[in-house]
């Protein structure tokens, strides 16, 4: 296996609040390999989005990285000054957000928003009219590559004039405009209708195949991740609780939380099977329990779960943070 494209070791992200220090990400290790598709699954508050915002240095103050190292393409990028991070953003690592309606600027046209991205990263553009012409052509090409019909006309539209699915494609087009090596797609389907969801996911798969971009699919929905991701990471309360090849994890989950997630997805194959939500609520992010954080909600809880526990390897590249896994 080649060297990882993105490597995160021991990442801790905290948000100081009046009530105390919120540990949004508490000791996360992960790797993303070139050209692969990694799924990151977790509910609200699991820290999945914050992890990747930290990678790009997009944490909103007073949030900050408290500990850990982030390496991209062999180079340490955590702690880099803003100017150098900016060079990475969009160019090497790109991000798309959940809702394109709020992520795109309502006051600028599609063309403007694509063009400024290209301009920000390409100092070699010609000046004057040739520049505008070139940018327009590239923008149109990008829109076509994400499957938007009549791309030339869409350029002059404002985001609110487009449908939800098209907006998402525009956002993806912007993200890929500089051919980044890594695309982080944060909840790419959550704001979309079910029929459009499949289209967007297929688009991402196709772009990955064509451009060789590595993709991280962050979602709360295991179903979204199941079909397109080679590997999957399950996060809970700021920690990684399970990881491994997607099919293996789904076929035989090693962590009770993952099992719970699978059980709570309605199934077409078994329409009569009751949907069982996971009872309880996530642990207090300011004072998390020292041991397993899922313990209060776990049906298999034992006294041993109160002790601190690390990820334990299972076979075939899998690992889970559970005492049930033989150490």
């Amino acid at each position, binding site marked *: 296996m080649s060297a990882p494209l993105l490597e995160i070791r021991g990442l801790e992200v905290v948000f100081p609040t009046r009530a105390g220090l919120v540990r949004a990400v508490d000791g996360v290790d992960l790797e993303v390999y070139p050209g692969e598709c990694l799924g990151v699954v977790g509910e609200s508050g699991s820290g999945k989005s914050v992890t990747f*915002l930290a990678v*790009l240095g*997009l944490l*909103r103050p007073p949030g900050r990285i408290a500990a850990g190292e982030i390496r991209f393409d062999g180079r340490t990028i955590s702690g880099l000054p*803003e100017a150098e991070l*900016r*060079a*990475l*953003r*969009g*160019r090497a690592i*790109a*991000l*798309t*957000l959940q*809702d394109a309606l*709020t*992520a*795109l*600027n*309502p*006051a*600028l046209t599609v063309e403007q928003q694509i063009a*400024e*991205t290209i301009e*920000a*990263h390409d100092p070699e553009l010609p000046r004057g009219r040739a520049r505008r012409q070139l940018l327009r052509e590239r923008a149109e090409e990008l829109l076509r590559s994400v499957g938007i019909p009549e791309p030339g006309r869409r350029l002059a539209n*404002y985001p*609110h004039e487009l449908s939800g699915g098209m907006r998402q494609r525009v*956002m993806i087009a*912007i*993200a890929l405009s*500089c051919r980044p090596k890594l695309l982080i797609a944060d909840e790419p389907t959550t704001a979309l209708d079910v029929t459009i969801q499949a289209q967007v996911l297929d688009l991402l798969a196709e772009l990955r195949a064509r451009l060789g971009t590595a993709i991280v699919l962050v979602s709360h929905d295991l179903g979204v991740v199941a079909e397109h991701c080679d590997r999957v990471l399950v996060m809970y309360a700021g920690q990684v609780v399970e990881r491994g090849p997607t099919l293996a994890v789904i076929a035989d989950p090693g962590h009770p939380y993952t099992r719970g997630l699978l059980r709570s997805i309605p199934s077409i194959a078994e329409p009569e099977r009751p949907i069982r939500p996971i009872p309880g609520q996530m642990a207090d992010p300011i004072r998390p329990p020292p041991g397993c954080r899922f313990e209060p909600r776990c049906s298999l809880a034992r006294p041993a779960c109160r002790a601190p526990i690390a990820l334990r390897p299972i076979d075939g590249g899998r690992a889970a943070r559970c005492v049930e896994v033989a150490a």
Partner: protein
Amino acid sequence: MRPSALVERLLQLVPVLLGIALVVFLMMQATPGDPVELMLGDALATPEQREALRRDMGLDRPLPERFLHFLGNAVTLDFGQSFHHRRPVADVILERLPATIELTLAAMAIAIGLGVPLGVVAAVRRDGWIDRLATILGLAGVSMPGFWLGILLILLFSVELGWLPVSGRIGFAGEVPPVTGLLLVDTLLAGRPASFFEALRHLLLPAVTLGLAMAALLMRVTRTSMLEALRQDYVTFATAKGLPRRRVLIRHALKNALTPTVTVAAIETGTLLGGNMIVETVFGWPGLGRLVVEGIFTRNYPLVQAAVLLYAVTYVLLNLLADVLQTVLNPKVRL
């Protein structure tokens, strides 16, 4: 923005303008005393002459008819004769108008040029020293009566330091042939830089006095709306695209933050229009505001009536202009 939308909006203004004209008309009907007596003043006149004058001024006609008459005249800018000046009111007003326009424009420039950037900085460096200072100054600015501020500035800059003149628009030596009526422009057109600076020195204190309160308000509004804009997803996304910070701030955050700012600025111009009466009085500025105040004391009702109408109509049109500006700034906003 479709031209038909603009026309629609203008048509919507008509009932408001009519209402304003009606209110102004009714205001003047409330004056105590006989208009004919006021007009004649000290002049001796026989009862027959008074009657003739009364009929001439249409004062024997029923009220609605007089209103229509007034309206018709107003549209043709005929506001009758100024009691005091014995000249058409319209002429008198026109004479003094450029001075007020110059003052108001200068005040607006100060308000926007000071308030908006300060608001942006305060929001971007939230809780920094600029933010705290701006908040305090902002609060002080809206709590100070304009006439008091003007007097304080005169005390400091004219009396104590002697840097700036106390009153007036320009000395004798600085007079130039009027082209636009705006001294700052005319002095440059006449190629007299010394006069330009003279005019500037005279304009400075009154403009600052008039504009400071609005600057304070604009700063607070801009700060709030910038903070709101900076929290939005599109700022995160724009940063994630790798755009330079300044571009994100101005092209993305500020562009959207300006919408509420423009709205507030438009409403505040009303305060500017009212305020120039005070400021012109304090600084002896030869503009329309001072003319109106003098007119009130000399019971020059046709003049006051015309001026009030003019101010109100200007205000309404300015607000329309602001709405048009909004559609340019933010395409989601419809006229």
